[in-house]
C-alpha cells in the first residue's frame, strides 16, 4: 500500500508524516491525502496522534528550523491538495536540514516553499494594512478578510507593538478574533458580530489621516496601476483611506 489518508488537521498531517517517514522504506514514493469518506476511497487511514505530531515538530525545529517555519506558514495558507508534496518536503528536510529550502528545482520543495511564502507575504502586508478604529469604550477594533489564516502571528505582532492599548482583531470570513486585554492575548470565535459604536473623536482622526493621505501624493505623478499592484483592491474594504472610493 503506498497511499495513506489523514483527517485534514495540521496535527493529523504531522502524525501521518511522522509515521510514514519512520516506517516506510521509500517515503518519496508514497502519496498522502485528506480523507473524504467516500465509499471507494483507497488508502490506509492514519489516526491523529497529538503527542507524535508534537514530537515530530520539535524534531523538525531542532534539525531544520527554517523548514519548521515554512511548514507553519504552509499550514496558515490553508491550501488543499498538496499533502503529498508536503510529506516529501518534510522527509527531505529531515534528511538534508535547512539546505533543502534552496532545492527549488525539486517540485515538491518548490510547491511547499511557494505556498508558504504566500502566507508570510500576506502576513507582512497586513502588518501594514490592518486598520484599527477607536470604540466608544476606548478599545480599538480592526477587521480584516485575509486569504490566509494569519490571525495568530498578526496578533502576536501587535501584542508587541500596541502594548498599552486594549484591542481586537477580527477575521470576518473565518469568524475568529484575537483580543489583547491588560497585557494578555486571547483567541476565540465570534458567532454573531455586532459592530460596536465608534468613539466621538474617531471620525476626526480619520479625516486627518485622509487629508495626509491625499496631500502626500504628488499630483503630476498619479499612478493608480502601481498603487493597485502594491495594494490590491481586494484589501481596500477595511482601509480607512479607501472608504467611499
Amino acid at each position, binding site marked *: 500500500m503506498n497511499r495513506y489518508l489523514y483527517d485534514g488537521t495540521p496535527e493529523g498531517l504531522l502524525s501521518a508524516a511522522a509515521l510514514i517517514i519512520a516506517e516506510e522504506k521509500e517515503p518519496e514514493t508514497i502519496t498522502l491525502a485528506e480523507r473524504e469518506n467516500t465509499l471507494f476511497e483507497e488508502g490506509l487511514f492514519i489516526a491523529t496522534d497529538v503527542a507524535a505530531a508534537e514530537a515530530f515538530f520539535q524534531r523538525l525545529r531542532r534539525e531544520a528550523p527554517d523548514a519548521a517555519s515554512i511548514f507553519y506558514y504552509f499550514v496558515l495558507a490553508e491550501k488543499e491538495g498538496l499533502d503529498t508534496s508536503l510529506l516529501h518536503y518534510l522527509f527531505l528536510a529531515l534528511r538534508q536540514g535547512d*539546505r533543502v*529550502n*534552496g*532545492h*527549488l*528545482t*525539486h*517540485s515538491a520543495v*518548490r510547491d511547499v516553499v511557494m505556498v508558504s511564502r504566500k502566507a508570510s507575504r500576506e502576513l*507582512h502586508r497586513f*502588518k*501594514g*494594512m*490592518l*486598520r*484599527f*478604529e*477607536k470604540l466608544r469604550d476606548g478599545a*480599538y477594533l*480592526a477587521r480584516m478578510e485575509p486569504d490566509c489564516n494569519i490571525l495568530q502571528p498578526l496578533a502576536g505582532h*501587535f501584542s*508587541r*507593538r*500596541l*502594548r*498599552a*492599548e486594549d484591542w481586537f482583531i477580527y477575521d470576518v470570513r473565518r469568524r475568529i478574533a484575537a483580543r489583547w486585554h491588560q*497585557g494578555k492575548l486571547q483567541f476565540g470565535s465570534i458567532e454573531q458580530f455586532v459592530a460596536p459604536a465608534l468613539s466621538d473623536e474617531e471620525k476626526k*482622526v480619520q*479625516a*486627518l*489621516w485622509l*487629508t*495626509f*493621505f*491625499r*496631500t*502626500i*501624493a*504628488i499630483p*503630476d*505623478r*498619479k*499612478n*493608480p*496601476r*502601481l*498603487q493597485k499592484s*502594491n*495594494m490590491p483592491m481586494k484589501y481596500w474594504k477595511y*482601509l*480607512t*483611506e479607501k472608504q467611499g472610493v
Partner: protein
Amino acid sequence: METLEKLQILSGAARYDASCASSGSRRQDASCGTGNTSQGGICHSWSDDGRCISLLKILLSNDCIYDCAYCVNRATNPVPRASFSAREVVELTMEFYRRNYIEGLFLSSAVMQSPDHTMERMVGVAELLRTEERFGGYIHLKIIPGSSSALVRKAGLYADRISVNIELPSQESLRRLAPQKHKQAILEPMSLIGRQIQESMLERKASRHAPRFAPAGQSTQMIIGASPESDLQILRLSEGLYRKMHLKRVYYSAFVPVNADNRLPVLASPPLLREHRLYQADWLLRFYGFSAGEILSDDAPNLDETFDPKTSWALRHPEFFPVEINRADYGTLLRVPGIGVTSARRIVAARRFSVITPEGLKRIGVVMKRAKYFITCSGRPFEKTGRQPELLRSRLLIGDGAGESIPEPPPKQLSLPGLFA
C-alpha cells in the same frame, strides 16, 4: 489655524522629500509603552502616485528665513505659512500610530528664526514622544544645517535615523542656488553623526546598556537636475558618502520647478527617468559590487536612457559573457542583467543539489527575459545572438519592452522610492 489645515500645508510641503524608508532599526521596549520598529520596514499604504507610505512625513514649519532658489517655501515666495506646536505633532503621531496608519514620524522643517531655534523645537518633539508618551516607533529627524553639535547629539539619542541633506551635488551649485547654506554647515554634522554612530556601536559592544545613537544610520538627499553636474560626478559623490562617511542611503530627488528663477534650468518635465536610473546605479554601488568608474566614464559621463545601467554595462563588456550558470561564482552571477540578489542566491543554493537545467532555472523563479541573452546552461546558450552586439541591442529593445525593468531589489527595500513607469 486648525490642525487639519496645518497638516494640509505642512504635509504638502514635505511631499517631495524622496526618503520614505523606515527599515533597518529594531527598537524594543521592555516596558509597556506603545510601539516598536520592525527590522524589515513596513509599508502601511500606497498613495495615489504609487509610493509607499510608511511614516507621517511633515514639516514642523514652512516659515523660512532662507531663500533657496529651488524651494517652494523660500522666504520670498508668497505661499501660506504654518507651524505646528510640538504637542500637535505628538498627538498626530500617537493617534496615527495607534490606528496602525504609520510606522512613525519623519520630521523636517524650514528654518525658523535660526538653525538652532528650529533644531531645538524638532528635538523637543522627539523628546516628548520618547519620554512622555513612551513611544517606541520609528523617528527620523532632519538636521538643519548649521545647528549646534549639542543638538545634533541629542537628536541622535532620540531618533532612529537622522539625516542632513547634501542638497546639491557640488559646492559651486550650493553657492549659486542655496547661498545661505554652507558646505561646512552640511558636512560637519554629517561627519559628527558618522563618528557618533561608530562610537555608540563600539560602546554597545562593551555594554548592552550604552545608549543607542541613530541605530538606523544616516542618510542624505540631493536634488537632481537643478544644477549641471553629470551622473558620473553624482555617483562618485555617492560612492564617497557610502565608503568614507558610511551612509546608509543616498536619495535622489528629481528637480521639480516650482519657482521662476533665472538661476534654474528650464525643464519640460521633472527628470524622472534620470532619477530612476540613478537609483538603479546606486543599487549597483551598494549591492552588486560595482564602482562608479565602472558604471560610467569621463567619455560617457551620463547614464543611458534606453537601458538600465547593468544592461548597459553588459553591452559594453561582451568579453565578460556568456556566464555559465552552473559554474559562475555569486559575484559574477550578479553582473548578469536580469539576475538580482534573490535569483543569484537561489541559483547558488540550487546548484548544491544538482546541475541546473533551463527548466530548473525557470522553476526557481529566475526571470529569463533579459538574462537569456547573457548566460549558458551547461555550455548551451539560450539565444543565438552570438557575438553580434547590434543584434543583441535590438533584441533587448524590441522583444522586451526596452530596459524598463528594474533590477530585482532585495525584499527589504519595499519602500524604494521612484518606481514610476
